[in-house]
């Protein structure tokens, strides 16, 4: 297979000026990351600082109601409240090993920005976070967190002023500052080697979950379900199960309001193949190849593209991708709060919702593993506004 490709998806569609730093990261990924010293340091930070291994929890009340075992991989219990920290720590360490002093990141909702700012503070690196101006206003709480952690947050007021424009701006900054700066890409998308590098650091999710399932359930899960925006928690949750053909892998995209003609964030289900942010993948685009705006109630899923490995897994039939709309995700959010005493992120609520909505077709006695990628405290403002608008 061509380097950096997953079937026909992936690649390095970037200006030549970015090829040297990308090839430098590729080299570091192949030499530094597998080294014993790097792995030892990475895993000791994950254990002592992030709080890994994260719990695997069988939901007693929902399992009883549904007639199958619902297991949650509790990435929400990580330091900073989501899976994003796994990747930020890994790339922060790599940045230091490569002799660079600045971590540059893009962020949409702010979770990857907070994770990167946290890793940078802990590893004594400078941190610059690019964030769409609209998101800076919507997620002001996370902007304050990043500032407290010592990061510089740069609001981007070009284009749609959201995540995709923050990525454009971060790529531009990286062209100029590549000698001192490592671009800590937040999801399993973008040009090679980012999809592979991010998968490498997020795969700790499925490594742990596989061992925990074998120990607690005595067997592998029948389903692994995860939400997909760019797709980093999903690829992390899938990776170790990919060779086990009997495990069904389900990615869940955000269908937005679900009304015909409305914006959504489901390129695998409703998009077409094209090139954005350095990779060939599935995209929301016009027939002329212009990128279309996305929408989801979950800010972390609100992105018009998706990681190329997911497009490849869909294409070869190994993984399947469903959709959940805003209302279904909102309902699942409340169900998990009330039934299990867990407030999930709205992103992760999409994965929970897929299970609840498809419960009738899941055989009784199944083992269903959901990646609970983050906690929902950050979403209380969105929930409040949603209820006000819907007069709930």
């Amino acid at each position: 297979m061509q380097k950096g490709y997953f079937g026909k998806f992936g690649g390095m569609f970037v200006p030549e000026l970015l090829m040297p730093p990308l090839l430098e990261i590729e080299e570091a990924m192949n030499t530094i990351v597998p080294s014993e010293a790097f792995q030892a340091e990475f895993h000791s930070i994950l254990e002592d600082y992030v709080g890994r291994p994260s719990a695997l929890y069988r939901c007693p009340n929902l399992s009883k109601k549904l007639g199958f075992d619902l297991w949650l991989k509790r990435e929400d219990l990580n330091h900073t409240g989501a899976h994003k920290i796994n990747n930020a720590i890994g790339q922060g360490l790599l940045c230091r090993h490569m002799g660079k002093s600045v971590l540059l990141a893009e962020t949409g909702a702010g979770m990857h920005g907070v994770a990167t700012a946290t890793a940078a503070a802990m590893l004594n690196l400078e941190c610059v976070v690019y964030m769409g101006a609209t998101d800076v206003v919507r997620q002001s709480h996370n902007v304050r967190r990043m500032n407290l952690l010592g990061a510089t947050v740069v609001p981007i007021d070009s284009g749609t002023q959201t995540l995709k424009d923050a990525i454009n701006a971060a790529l531009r900054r990286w062209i100029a500052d590549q000698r001192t700066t490592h671009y800590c890409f937040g999801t399993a998308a973008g040009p090679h080697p980012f999809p592979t590098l991010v998968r490498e650091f997020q795969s700790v999710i499925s490594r742990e979950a596989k061992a925990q399932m074998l120990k607690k359930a005595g067997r592998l899960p029948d389903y692994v379900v995860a939400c997909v925006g760019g797709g980093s928690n999903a690829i992390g949750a899938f990776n170790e199960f990919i060779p086990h053909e009997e495990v069904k892998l389900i990615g869940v995209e955000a269908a937005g309001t679900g009304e015909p003609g409305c914006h959504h964030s489901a390129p695998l289900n409703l998009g077409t193949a094209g090139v954005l942010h350095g990779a060939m993948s599935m995209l929301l685009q016009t027939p002329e190849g212009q990128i279309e705006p996305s929408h989801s109630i979950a800010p972390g899923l609100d992105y018009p593209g998706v990681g190329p490995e997911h497009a490849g897994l869909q294409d070869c039939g190994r993984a399947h991708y469903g959709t959940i709309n805003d209302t279904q995700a909102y309902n699942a959010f409340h169900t998990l709060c009330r039934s299990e005493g867990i407030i999930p992120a709205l992103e992760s609520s999409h994965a929970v919702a897929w299970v609840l909505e498809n419960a009738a077709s899941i055989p009784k006695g199944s083992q269903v593993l959901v990646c609970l990628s983050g906690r929902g405290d950050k979403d209380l403002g969105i929930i409040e506004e949603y209820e006000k608008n819907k007069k709930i």
Partner: protein
Amino acid sequence: MSILTDRIRAANAAGRKAVIPYLPAGFPDRERFWDELTALDAAGADIIEIGVPFSDPVADGPVVEQASLECLEKGACLSWILTELARRKGDFKAGLVLMGYYNPFLQYGLERLGRDCAAAGVSGLIIPDLPLEEAQPATAALTGTGVDVICLVGLNTPVERLKLYAEKARGFVYFVSVLGTTGVRESLPEEVLAKLDEVRPLFNVPLALGFGIARPEQVSPFGDRIDAVVIGSALIKHIREGKGAGSFMEDWRPAGK
């Protein structure tokens, strides 16, 4: 021989650098764009680079990005550009190239693109997000159409990669003068001079210098190391100030030169 190489060599033979202005298609609006293009041609542009607007132009600075987004809003798209150029085929003395990001070209269809560029009198494509590793499908589809895929290299391109680009170079090689995006700079980095000495002998096509350039005196230190100059953001600013493309060219092509 490539039309683009010809145009640059002809300017050099006349004792000057070839001048390559860049204008986004549909700027300042869909009608006036054609007037400005005609004015650039009449004022002696050797090659004109026509920007194909894209929603996410990662290699561009704020001036080109803003112009590009305005053009999109006004309905400028690749099929409009190629249709209108085909209607005017033969009207321009200058060589024509399209500068645009890969996705709109890809969605148009690479085979169809080759045919329609040839029919529209377009002699080259500059695709800033298509490095060596990904260029094969485009170069294969365009082979035999007379449309060159122009390669871009820069200050950080190692010599091994330069050699690979040099093997495939057609038309001219575009040297990016800064580690950065498009947009006017007060001065160009000092390291450009030394890098040009390394790049120049590897290529047997002419070399154009672009990014950051606003005034002729910025490029005079480079002497014979460069054969052509690309100017973009400075022209957009000039037109935004209410002045015409023709008067912009006076700085670059003094009468009679």
